[in-house]
């Protein structure tokens, strides 16, 4: 299967993303810049844009609906935190978006990574209880999407009696939205296996992933990588931009990444942060760079290099079982998201497709001998 690619819309148009503490970020929109980004992403082979959830952001469901009215192809991967709304109301919203956008919505379930922020929303559960509740939440949602009998559910966190919705999930190709789920903990893995189509992980070395990915795939769940990207025509330019970014960030008093890592109860955020801390160099592989993590947090683990280097690195991940990628870019330091995504579409994606064709051809030749 060809690899699938997604990109974080995040605050496209907000040049300060990731450079300031979250409490100082603006919730305001640059709607036109986001429309432009969505169109450029679709033209660059990106299937969907991640619409993140957080108190410092606009609401992803509403924003997706408005962006969809101005775009034609791009899908919206809408983040949801179980616990901030009734599962019935959530399914009603997802189905409404699907009906308004010809099915251009998928769901990214996040259980929350900052206890403080969860308190803003009235959520006071511990890490493992949040996963327990997410399990019930998704069970209810999926029952609605099965569209059989009225939905009744009796659990520890939710009780639903004779639930019905008249707005169906509308998409040409599927009866329910694709469900993505982020997390590195055992609880996240189990939850993904029960309910999701794809589990997001922060990037790690292919060697580490080769151990952890196959057991998940064996349970019928895809594994995707969440990774930042900085691609330039030459390695020198890529390194110059990467190191230049760290230099700019070092001049700032605040270590957003470090502070966040101390407060979070997310296993994924802490694990990636520690991976970066323990490593003797900033380079976990020749292409996988952890140098920005102390400044920007775990999601700043990045593929850095030339199109050829990054395409090869992506193929190594594919060989380790990874089938989808969710990219973030750094508009504040190097170049706007829209340029990074366009560069990916023009220079990197064709190389990947070429390598995939070659790999398929090779597999076809050896498979009759039972090598695969």
């Amino acid at each position, binding site marked *: 299967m060809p690899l699938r690619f997604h990109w974080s819309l995040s605050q496209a148009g907000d040049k300060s993303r990731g450079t300031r503490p979250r*409490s100082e*970020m*603006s*919730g*305001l*929109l640059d*709607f036109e810049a986001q429309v432009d980004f969505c169109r450029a992403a679709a033209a660059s082979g990106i299937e969907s844009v991640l619409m993140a959830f957080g*108190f*410092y*952001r*606009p*609401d992803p*469901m*509403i*924003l997706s*609906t*408005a962006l969809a*009215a101005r775009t034609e192809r791009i899908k919206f991967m809408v983040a949801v935190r179980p*616990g*901030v*709304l*009734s*599962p*019935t*109301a959530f399914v*009603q*919203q997802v*189905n*409404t*978006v699907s*009906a*308004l956008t010809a099915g251009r919505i998928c769901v990214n379930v996040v259980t929350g990574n900052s206890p*403080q922020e969860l*308190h*803003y*929303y*009235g*959520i*006071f559960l511990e890490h493992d209880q949040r996963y327990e509740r997410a399990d019930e939440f998704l069970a209810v949602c999926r029952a609605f999407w099965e569209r059989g009998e*009225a*939905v009744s559910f009796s659990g520890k966190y*939710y*009780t*639903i*009696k*004779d*639930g*019905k*919705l*008249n*707005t*169906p999930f*509308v998409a040409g190709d599927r009866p329910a939205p694709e469900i993505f789920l982020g997390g590195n903990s055992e609880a996240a893995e189990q939850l993904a296996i029960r309910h999701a189509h794809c589990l997001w992980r922060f990037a790690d070395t292919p060697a580490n992933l080769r151990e952890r990915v196959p057991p998940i795939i064996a349970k019928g769940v895809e594994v995707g990588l969440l990774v930042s990207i900085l691609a330039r025509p030459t390695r020198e330019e890529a390194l110059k931009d990467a190191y230049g970014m760290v230099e700019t960030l070092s001049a700032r008093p605040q270590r957003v990444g470090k502070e966040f890592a101390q407060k979070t109860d997310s296993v994924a955020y802490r694990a990636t942060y520690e991976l970066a801390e323990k490593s003797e160099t900033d380079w976990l592989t020749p292409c996988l760079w952890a140098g920005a993590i102390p400044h920007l947090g775990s999601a700043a683990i990045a593929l850095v290099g030339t199109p050829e280097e990054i395409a090869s690195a992506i193929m190594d991940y594919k060989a380790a079982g990874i089938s989808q990628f969710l990219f973030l870019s750094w508009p504040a330091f190097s170049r706007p998201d829209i340029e990074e995504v366009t560069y990916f579409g023009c220079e990197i994606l064709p190389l990947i497709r070429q390598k995939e064709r070659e790999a398929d051809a090779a597999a076809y030749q050896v498979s009759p001998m039972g090598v695969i």
Partner: protein
Amino acid sequence: MTRDALDPPGASDPAAKPAKFHWRLPYGGETSGGTWAHKFSTEDGMPDLQAQTEFCRRAEACGIDSLLTDFGYGKPDPMLLAATLGRATEKIKFILAYRSGLFSPTMFVQQLNTLSALIQGRLSLNIVAGYSPQEQHAYGDFLSHDERYERTEEFLAICRALWKPDGEVNFKGKYYQIEKGALKSRFVSSERAWPEIFVGGGSAQAQRLALKQGDCWMRLPDAPEKMRESVAAVLTGGVEVGLRLAIIARPTRREALEAAYAMTEGRERDREFVRASVRNMDSISFKAMFELSEAGAEWLTPSLWTGAARAYGPAAIALLGGPEEIAEAILEYKRLGVTQFIISGWPKLEQMVYFGEAILPAIREKERAAV
């Protein structure tokens, strides 16, 4: 939590301001008939963007202020529908109907604030505590009528605190706990710092809730003299009063009566459906209204008719007659202090257009004459 400095000065003389007229937005599958039994079909669950956008534009042209966008399990989500319709229109506002208990108040405010930025603040809220326990159960809500009001009060108190210009929100109630709540997205509007809040419901709890947390108390109409006391009490509290009603207007009273009887004739199946639905409700005013119409008290005044409620549900209590008669009836409510009206009519589009052409000018004329 008490009312605070965010509140506008109370409407000192409600009769001096022009009344505001809102209309109910028809749902995708609603034909001109639009009975309750039909409302629960899957066609209604699907938005019909072409027809609904057209309805919004016609409403703008008719002098309608806002369109009521219902909430219920039979329909698409109101604010997502408004996000799409609002970006295709310029003036019309949306009164989004919601209930407490479905969302975290913080998340709810975040959604509304985001929507406000996308449609220039053209939204207000119609908060109801819910009228059907069965429907609440479908959303995972198992509280009783009175508890739902208690929770709605906490819900609105938190929402209003989040709409204050700055500062963090801390709240510890029976139903919600919020610690250092903050949102970066603000309510964006050139007119207000938070959306206008309509609180619907005829019970004493609803009235109290409107006084504590609302901008306008919405109720079903009754004969004006029977409403005088409750309207005055709410106005004294600095809160507006609005009516949720229908109109059956035709060029002459006789034509209106014929239309009304034609509309309700042979609707036995719908009547059974409404009867069963109302039996399962715990809304005090809906039940009372319905019982009046079932008991044969069809005419509460010469122009206020409950007959349609039996086939179309309690909100179908209607002012019936020619344009002059309906304009005069509305003015009579206005003289009591009622300043807002949310209306439905049949056929849906034609009746709104007729209201804009024939009735609204008569109302404005009378309003000018009264000043």
